[in-house]
Structures are given as C-alpha cells and as structure tokens.
C-alpha cells in the first residue's frame, strides 16, 4: 500500500521495478543504481566462474547474480550483498548463536540466552532456563528463517515445555535457542558505509476499522492495497489458525466489525513476509541507537554492510534501549524502498557509494533510464548464455517528450519505421495505441536537438495533429511498439503470474473452507445442530 503518508523514490517507481517483483527486486534495484551511474552491468547464471567461491542460494533462476565494473575494478554481487563481504561473515550471519557470540564479545547488546543441542532433554532445558535466564523467554529453532517456529513471551515452565515439544516434534528442529524475552518494538536497519542508510519499524499485521466492514473484509482490502506495493505484493496477510486465535484472544472473530479508527492486530510476529507493515523511522532514531546498529555491523569482520534487526524499548534511555537480535548480510531492502508510511530510503545508492565511492557525485545526477529485466535475462533463462551485459546509456541528462499523434496513425508499418529510426538515433521510448485511434509516442535521449529532429519524422501524410508535452517519468531503454510479440509476451507472462497467484489464493480459501468444515468446533456442534433441528421441527 502506498498510503498518503508514504513517499517513494521517483526513480524507483512501481513501473520501473514491475518486471522485478519478488526475489529479484533487491538485486534489480542495486544493479540499476550502478548501471545508472555509468558502471558496466553484467548478469550471470550460477555456472559463471566468478560465483563459484561466493556463498549463494536459490540461484537456479537468473536475476540474483551480477557484477558492476568501473574502468579500474569489478565487484560481484549476490542480491544486495557484494564481494567485500566475506563468506565467513555470511556464515556468522546465518547462525544466530554465533552472531550473538561475536556481538557480545564486541560489547554490542544482545539478548541473554542459551543454546541447547539435540541431546539436552526438554526437562533439562526447562530447569536450566528457569534457573539462569528466568521468564518470560523467547524460543526459536537455530536454523529457522522467516519467523518459522519462533515463539515469544513464554511465561511459564509449562508453556516452555509445550513450545519445545512443538519445535522438536512437529517442526523437527532439534537445536533450539532460548533467550530472555525483550519487550519493545522490532526494527530493521540497513547499515552501509558506517552509517544507518535507512530504518523501518516493523508493525505486526493489522487492520484499521471503519465502523462498517468486518475484519475479514478489512484484511481483503488491505491485501488489495498491498498488491500495489512492489515489496508487499508477494506478502499478503494470510488468514490462518494463528490469526484466528490471536484475534479471538482479543474477543474478536473474523466477522467482528471494529470501530472506526480502531487498530486490530492480527499477529504477534512482525515479519513483513507474514503481513507486517514497514514504516520508515529513519529520522526519528536517536544517534545512540543508530550507533549501536553501526557497531553491530563493525563487530563482524569483513561484513561492511547489511541488515540489522533490533528490538527497541522506548521506555529506556536511548543509550541502552536497543538490543540486536539478528544480522542479515544478504538483507532484503524492499521494505526500506517501499514503506507503507514515511520516506523511502535509497539503500541501493548507499551500497554503490560504498563500493564505488568515486561515483558518489554521479548518484545525484544519474539518468532515470531503466532496462527491461525480462529481456536482459532471457538468454540466461533459456540457458543459451551464461552472461549478458546490459547496454549502457551514455548520458546523464535525459530529455523526454510525449507526443500524442492523431490521424490514421495506428498502422504497424508506420510504428516499425519510427522504432527503427529511434533505435538508429539511440533514442528510447515506446508507442502506445490509444482507444480513440490516436497514438502516444514517448521518446527520450541525451540530446535535445536530436529529439527535435525526430519530431519532424513523426509527420506523415496520415498525421492530422501532434500534441507535445514533457515526459517526466523514467523511460525503459530500447523501443517497444504495441503488437510487438515481445511486449505481448511480457504482458502475458505477467498475467500468467497473477493467475498463478490467484490459483494459490483460491486453493488456500478452499483449503480453509474444508478445514473449517472438518474442524473440531464444527464437528462438536454437530449433535447440537441435530438436536436443534429436531426441536425446531417439533
């Protein structure tokens, strides 16, 4: 959702990243920043030589591995993580316990806690925890991610034992971590170049009442809004047992209608992937808290940049309000680029500043061109190539115009002729057919005069009128015309993806429906319903 309070970066509009939603979003944003500054950008498949010694995962599909080069040097990247980050630092980040050890040694505050391996029994763990850490506690599996199996605010030995049984027997994680429960809100910072480049607060999944709609409807409309956010599109609020139980505790069902302005939380966990809201707080953070995050990154040798997850207790003085709970060397930055409230923070720029400080100045005056991700990745996707280099745009200043041309102008040959000329002149843009028979021609290039010359070419015998205006949005390189097979294929792929998403949602709803019918409460009330019917009939 882009609510009125949110300000995103104009050069990373939803349109610019529309081909890179999901797991490729972060890689695309960082790569694009480098490319716009004039660095050479190449994309690779996982078989490419430079990545054989870099720790990477889920890279079967291309779009996560790339390199940026200046004339002097080349840096390789896996998503947001560049090659300055050592594999050792990545290993430390992946292991919460080691992270804690390293941070604690450096004097960075971390939650007190203990790690228990498979051979320690549940009873022994419980006894030791109550003797050393004390309640309330948080329990988590050591290799878990995305908040799976993390249970917070456990108050009693009994609840602890139940939680441990669940993690070990149901989720099959043998090694667990028990920590003191730290009250406060959860934040994600991004640190690069020894400073906090951005900070968001993660607010657990929630809806705000309007006095009319039921919680379930509010969730559906919130999910619709989340679809317009490039980061949140892949993370709808899912109605599951956890949500039902959580609102039940507050005395609600899905059918309850909250009052206008009333915020109803749907989960305890604040993960964005579980429906949490990212809210920008960068400017509100006390320097002392920011320093804690910077210290955390500095504490790990050869980490340099990455995501820092913190809990901040507002009731404490800033100097010791923050506790570091996790480090992410390969952090997702989408929530910092597309917050639901506040200003987007240009994390890609901070990362590129760090790797190519000499281009810092260009950061401000870079072009707003972008490249078609699908087209660049295509030869990698069908495995015919292992590397592609994105065409550079040799200009920082962009002149762009939109011409609305009326007349008998929707002839494909006319469009093809214009495209060929545009490509020859190294102009970028597109032609769109409008429903009223006119066409929209958008053209962008580095040379004002060339643009003017092209305007003359637009004139043809069938052209009646041309209306010219400035075009301020980013322009994709190349030149697309409608009825271009490429473009139709692109659109179709997009629709296919949406279809898959819908299928998923549908089967999820059906599944819920089935589960509900088979659920205990429903079964339990069966005799009751029968009796009622019986009585009614009498």
């Amino acid at each position: 959702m882009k609510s009125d309070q949110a300000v995103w970066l104009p050069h990373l509009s939803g349109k610019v990243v529309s081909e890179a939603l999901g797991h490729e979003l972060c890689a695309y944003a960082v790569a694009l920043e480098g490319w716009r500054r004039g660095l050479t950008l190449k994309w690779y498949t996982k078989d490419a030589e430079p990545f054989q010694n870099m720790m990477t995962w889920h890279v079967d599909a291309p779009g996560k591995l790339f390199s940026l080069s200046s004339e002097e040097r080349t840096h390789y990247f896996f998503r947001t993580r560049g090659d300055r980050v050592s594999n050792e630092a990545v290993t430390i980040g992946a292991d919460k316990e080691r992270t804690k050890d390293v941070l604690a040694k450096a004097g960075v505050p971390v939650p007190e806690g203990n790690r228990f391996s498979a051979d320690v029994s549940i009873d022994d763990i419980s006894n030791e925890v109550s003797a050393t850490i004390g309640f309330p506690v948080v329990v988590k599996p050591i290799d878990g991610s995305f908040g799976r199996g993390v249970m917070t605010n456990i108050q009693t030995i009994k609840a602890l034992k139940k939680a441990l049984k669940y993690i070990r027997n149901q989720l099959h994680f043998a090694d667990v971590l028990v920590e003191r429960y730290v009250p406060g809100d959860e934040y994600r910072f991004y640190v690069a170049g020894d400073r906090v480049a951005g900070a968001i607060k993660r607010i657990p999944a929630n809806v705000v009442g309007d006095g009319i709609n039921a919680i379930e409807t509010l969730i559906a409309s919130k999910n619709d809004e989340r679809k317009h956010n490039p980061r949140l599109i892949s993370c709808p609020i899912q109605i599951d047992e956890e949500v039902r139980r959580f609102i039940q505790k507050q005395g609600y069902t899905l059918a309850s209608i909250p009052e206008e302005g009333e915020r109803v939380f749907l989960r305890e966990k604040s993960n964005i992937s579980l429906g949490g809201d990212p809210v920008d707080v960068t400017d509100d953070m006390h320097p002392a808290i920011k320093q804690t995050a910077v210290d955390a990154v500095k504490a790990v040798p050869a980490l340099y940049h990455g995501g820092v997850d913190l809990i901040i207790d507002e009731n404490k003085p800033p100097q010791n309000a923050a506790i570091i709970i996790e480090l992410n060397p390969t952090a997702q930055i989408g929530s910092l680029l597309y917050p639901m409230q506040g200003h987007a923070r240009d994390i890609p720029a901070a990362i590129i500043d760090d790797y190519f400080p000499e281009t810092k100045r260009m950061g401000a005056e870079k072009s707003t061109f972008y490249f078609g991700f699908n087209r660049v990745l295509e030869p990698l996707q069908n495995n015919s190539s292992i590397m592609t280099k994105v065409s550079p745009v040799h200009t920082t200043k962009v002149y762009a115009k939109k011409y609305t041309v009326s007349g008998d102008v929707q002839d494909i040959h006319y469009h093809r002729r214009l495209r060929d000329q545009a490509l020859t002149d190294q102009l970028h843009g597109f032609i769109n057919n409008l429903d009223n028979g006119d066409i929209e021609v958008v053209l962008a290039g580095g040379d004002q005069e060339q643009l003017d010359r092209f305007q003359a070419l637009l004139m043809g015998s069938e052209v009646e009128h041309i209306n010219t205006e400035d075009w301020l949005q980013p322009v994709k390189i190349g030149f697309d015309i409608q009825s271009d097979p490429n473009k139709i294929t692109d659109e179709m792929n997009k629709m296919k993806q949406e279809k898959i998403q819908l299928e998923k949602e549908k089967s999820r709803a059906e599944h819920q429906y089935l589960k509900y019918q088979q659920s205990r409460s429903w079964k339990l009330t069966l005799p009751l319903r029968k009796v009622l019917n019986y009585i009614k009939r009498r």
Partner: protein
Amino acid sequence: MTNEHEWLPHLEDAIPKSAYGKKLSMYTIALEAWRRGIAVKFYRVEDPEENKSRIRYSLSYQGREHKFESSRGDLLTQEAYDVCDDKDLTKQYLSKAGIPVPEGRRFTEDAADEEIVDYTQTLGDPVVLKPISENGGKGVFADIRDAEDMRKALIHVRQELNYRDVIVEKHVTGEEFRIFIVGHEIIGAVNRTPAHIVGDGISSIGELIDKKNKEKRGNPNLFKSAIEIDKELLNTIQSKNYTLNSIPESGHRIFLRNKSSVSMGGDPNDVTNRVTSQMKDLATKSYKSIPGLDLCGLDMIVDEENDSGTIIEVNTKPMLGLHLFPVKGSARDVTAPIIDYYFPETIDMEKTNLYFDFDSVLEPLKSRSTDMVEVTSPPLGRLYTQRYIVSGRVQGVGYRKWIRKQALQHQLHGYTKNKKDGKVVVVVAGSNESDVRAFKDICAQGPEKAQVEKVKAKEWEKPVKMGFEIKKESSSKKRLKELEKQLQKEKNDKKKIARERSALDQEKKATKQKLKALEEEKESLQQEYMALRNSRVWRYTRPLRNISSMTKRS
C-alpha cells in the same frame, strides 16, 4: 540440382535462419570455436559513421582472447589490411614478388575522365574499371571495349557512386577462382558462374528462375541472393532471342547475366580439385608477398592451357559460405583451419556435435537491451544421438511437454515435434549412450493421458541444438505469416488467460463467501445454543433426552 553438392555433415541442420546471409561467416567460425570449448561472446559496437550498430564477437581460451568481425580476425595486421584495401598497393606488392597481375594504373581524384580514357587506348581493349577500394563487386566494370563505354562507366563510378580514386587495367580473360588460404595452406577454391537456369523442356524461363530462387533460399549463403528480374536481365535474354515465357529445351543452359558475382545471382561451385600445383605455388607465393596476412580469399584468373594464373585481388574478409555451401561440388571446411590457426592448442580437441541457440543470443542484442552476451559452453565431446518415432495417442495430450521435462531431467539435448500423421518425433542426444538408449522406455511410457503403441528407434547423425526444444510443425517457408499467426495466438492466449483469471477471481470470492456464510451460521448456532441452554425447553426436555440416549444404548 540438389544432388549436385555435398555439404559438411557437422553443419547440416546446424545453421539457424538468423545466421543465414551476412552473419554466416560469424556464426560458423563462432560455432567451430564453441564446439571445441572456446568461450564465445557476441557484442554490439556502434558505428558512428553510418549511425548503425554492428555485432562483433570474441573467442577466448585459457586467458587468450581474439576478436573477430565476420571472417576477419585480429591476427591480421593493420599493414596487411591496408595493403589489401588499396588495390593498386596490392598489385605493387604482388608484382614485386614476381606474381602476374593485370597491366594497368591508378588514377587519383584530380585526374580528368578524358585523361583516363586516353590511357585506356594505350592498354588496348578490353579493360576493367574499378574503384581503388570496394567490397562485394560494387562499382566494378569489366570488359569495357570502347571509349564511349569507358566514359559512361567513369561517370557512374566516379560521380554517381562517388569513388573518385579508380584503377584501370587490362581485362584478363579466363575463369576466375576464389582461393581460400589460411596460414599458408590452401583450403579450397570455388568459381562463380553467372546467374543461369537449365531448361527441363516443360517450364518457362520465368518458372525456372522461381525454382532456382527457391533453391537459393534454402542455401544459408545464397539465402538473400535471389536472381532478380530487372532490366539488365531482360536485355540479356532478349539478346538471346528469349522472353520470360520461352520454354528452353531440357538440359539447355541459359545465362541470364554477364556478371558472375554471387550477389547478382551467380552460383559458387567447388573447384578445389582443379587447382594445379602450379596454381597452388602461385597462390602461396601471393599470400607470402603480403606480410601480416592471417587468412585471405585470393581472386585468380586461371589460364588452364598454360597452367598459370593472374592475381586480381586479395580479400581479407572473405565470405566463408562460398566454400561451406557451394551449389555444385564438395563443401570445404574453411572454419576448422581458422580456429586451428588462432587456437592451435585446440586442434585435437574432441568437438561436440551440438550447436547453440543463435536466435536467443541475438535477440537482446538486436533490441538493444544488452550489448554483450556470452554463450553457455557445451558439454565437451561428441554426443550420442537417437531419434524415436512414437505412435499411438500422443498428440494433444501434453506428450511433448512431458518429454521435454524428462529430457531436461536426464540432461539430454534435442527436440520433439508433432508429425502430420499423428506420430511424435523425439530426438535426444547425450554423452552417455545407455542414457540415450534408455530414453526409449521413457518415450514408451509418456504422460498419463497418452497411450503409446510403438516406439521406433533410429540412429541420428545430424547435429542437435543445445537444450531441449519443442519444435513447431510448420516449415520455414512462410516465416512472416507464421510470426503473425503466432502473434494472433499470443493475443488470443492473453485473452483466454484474462478470462481464466477473472473466472478464478470469482471462484475465489465465491469460496470465501461460502466460508463466511459457514462462519456466520456457526456463530448464530452458538448464539442459539446459548439461548437454548438457558431456556426452559432445554431443561424440560432433559429427561426425554436421557431416555432417548438410554434407548439408543440398549
């Protein structure tokens, strides 16, 4: 005609349509290198002079890189290039080494046309007029026989075509051979016969030209060199007392033009076996006389009677297709010796018989989204290939999609396509013979909906494209129509998907509503239940309920 030539088996069916014509030398050299495990990159360079972008490629092996433009590699020195680019300079180098060249001289731009005409008289006819530097026979006038023709030709070349510097030389009569040399070795030779047809006693000249053009379109090198029916051609046949409607006798050959160049519809024919050792010596000596040559195409007018020849030109960027896809005679493998010369350490490398997907490499370069693409390296060594023909209920049941998945899982390359008779062809290639053979069982299994009756196996020698492809049935004949059909299909598919999507959306909403209704029902039940519990009826019916449960138990 089709049986008059013998092409190289390793290039058969290995040339994608996008490599036909101008890109043929580039593709075939890159392919030869790629098959040896040499890394191949294609890249785009801007040509500011013509405001166009051009595709170049580089080959690299163990840290050593060579850049190429078509058939011209970077081992050709600038000096050698300059010598061959200037036809007069070429002649000077050749003469110095004692090689026969046509008598003649160069005229710079300040020479008046009349001065050139005067000189022509001293040479005696016939003469040749050509620009000092040109490509592909443009602006070359051979067999000029009088001053008037010379004047016309000069106006055309110097003013209309704007080649001010020209050469006038004696026209040496005889057959012209193109001899291909790389690293001192003569690899092959072709001659070029002017555009012609051979009568069959039934078809008219017009029909025979059409037929010939159809054949040319199937030739990767001559694809774009159809015989065009223009004024010159009509004049030629008229001078022989024919029209387009005349029906020549069977076996009677009619030349349609005087010029033999391939771009004018001429045919290249392999004549390697007609190059005598005398001629070979002459060719090798010529090659040596210009220092810094890597490879070249030598144009020699041969004098078979005296077993000798005259060199008229040295080309540094020769068309390889002349030798790879001759109209008559045996193809000569001119690409392997080029790679041998550039990468001698790969001479003994066992080559794969795969070829790469040139289209998908070119596509992003053409749309200008990328300016460099590195081709995925193939598995090294020759692959074993089999062709299976599957019969039964195998079309319209998702058979090919399923086969593709299986093939990719087993790391096999190849393709599958529907046959018109209802059968499906599956071609698979892999380094392990038993894997390829075992794939027959997989073909026999097929997806759930298929019913396979029989699988016939056949050895298959043709190269296979890397990866696994589902081939469209239609022939390459009407590519444009096919593309348009495809476009329409995509549009329809798009609509279909949009419909499916909205149907799904509705279904989803319906399910959600059902769910909601269910929950509401539950809630109202619970309320009723609570109300009931507290009601008197409940209390009063208790004995009754107890009794009924007792009777059930008993």
